[in-house]
């Protein structure tokens, strides 16, 4: 087995008196894409945000690439770990052009060659050159999500955290973005965690996934077990049955 890129051990999160994540442990191998599924409020996004350093009130063990993470992260961490959010309209600055949005991570991390890197990043996510000097509101939903992906990748991270990256998109655009993510992860050997409530999307990108309910991981399955419906937990079986039902 390849070495673990991301590890969580006995992760607990409290928001005030609210205990929202209970003893969550999993590990993700380098180059693997790991899925986190569950209903809203199950704590899946919170786990992701802990890893990203966006939630501070956690205890337990978190490690990326063998290095234990503290509550304060250094700059190198933020270059190595990047995140893509659900709603591209909410996560892009409305008064900055795509060019400005993409130069920000480069400036923060002191990466030279902004000009060529931005051109390359736009090419990589299949955005037209003309998109570079547009504002987010002038782009379609799918194009905006491509910008968000380009921004995450421009600092050359090794870990990509995806929080419902396609649930705000049309099914036709979702297919394009999922293909793009599959290509990029292959080309750049990215380790990813994908959070989604859509089992079909998770099954498409992930070989392994954890099912969460009420802040706990109730089960960890492989893609094949998921597709075959081999589950030992009632909640997972409910989710699988529902997903099959909605597919019709």
């Amino acid at each position, binding site marked *: 087995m390849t070495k673990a890129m991301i590890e969580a051990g006995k992760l607990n999160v409290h928001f005030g008196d609210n205990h929202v994540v209970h003893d969550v442990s999993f590990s993700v191998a380098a180059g693997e894409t790991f899925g986190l599924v569950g209903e809203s409020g199950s704590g899946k996004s919170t786990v992701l945000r802990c890893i990203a350093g966006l939630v501070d009130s956690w205890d337990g063990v978190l490690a990326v690439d063998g290095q234990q993470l503290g509550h304060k992260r250094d700059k190198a961490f933020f270059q190595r770990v990047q995140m893509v959010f659900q709603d591209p309209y909410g996560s892009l600055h409305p008064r900055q052009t795509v060019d400005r949005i993409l130069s920000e991570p480069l400036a923060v991390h002191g990466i030279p060659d902004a000009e060529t890197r931005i051109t390359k990043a736009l090419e990589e996510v299949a955005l037209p050159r003309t998109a570079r000097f547009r504002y987010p509101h002038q782009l379609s939903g799918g194009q905006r999500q491509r910008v968000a992906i380009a921004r995450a990748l421009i600092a050359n991270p090794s870990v990509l955290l995806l929080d419902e990256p396609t649930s705000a998109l049309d*099914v036709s655009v979702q297919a394009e973005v999922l293909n793009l993510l*599959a290509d990029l992860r292959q080309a750049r050997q990215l380790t990813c965690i994908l959070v989604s409530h859509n089992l079909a999307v998770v099954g498409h990108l992930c070989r392994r996934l954890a099912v969460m309910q009420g802040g706990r991981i109730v089960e960890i399955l492989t893609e094949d077990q998921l597709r075959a419906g081999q589950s030992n937990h009632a909640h997972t079986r409910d*989710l699988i049955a529902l997903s099959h039902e909605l597919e019709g």
Partner: protein
Amino acid sequence: MTKPLVEIQNLRVDFPTASGGYNAAVRGVSMALGREKLGIVGESGSGKSVTGRALMRLLPEAARVRADKLVFDGVDVLNASERTMRGLRGGRIGLILQDPKYSLNPVMTVGAQISEAWRAHNKGGKREAREAALNLLEQVRIRDPRRVLDSYPHEVSGGMGQRIMIAMMLAPDPAMLIADEPTSALDASVQAEILKLIDDLVSARGMGLMLISHDLPLVARFCDRVAVMYAGQVMETLPAQDLHRAEHPYTRGLLDCMPHLSQKRARLPVLTRDPKWLEQHS
């Protein structure tokens, strides 16, 4: 046969562009809706929401709306007075929007909002309105209606918010519901519950339903008929149970590009758009 609830013939909607021209959003849509469940499916920008809004005359004034016929239950929507339209909107036609976070008033309690909707279309005092609100919350199967009545929208979950929106729309006892992506902001299990609720209420009250969504299989499960829209035109209309036998390449493309749990595929087919689909149908 009884007269249909909604008759739309050759509806065209254009929005002005900055350069002084017009951009066609809906290009000759015709459909009729009885007391049945009609799904309208298409990608964003296909004109499906604009069609729904045109029926309620909710489009911005700058929009140019033309139609040979745009009739709701005997009312000519294009020429009706603003007063008549106010009776239609929220009265005879209820509109459920995508995200309850944005469509509920954040500084009013749930009870006050539902009571307001009820009092706008019914005669009665505050107490009666509150009773009605409580009753409506029970109808949309909220477990603890008394508590919810006095809470603010940020204190309830997304699924509950959508139930509250539905309760508000039911207050004036409408003849028709337009649900514009009612479940896209919700997760899968809540999605199914909300659609089931809409389905039950529509059947029990004998309303007409126009369900607007980009999710084809979902719509097919809950509707009697499905109209597939692309670039402002209806590509095809078919009975929901025949959806898997759809012939139009656009409909097929929309169905194929979804990942399936039961079927493993390395790559998802993407939709190739045929310029021929853009040509004007007669």
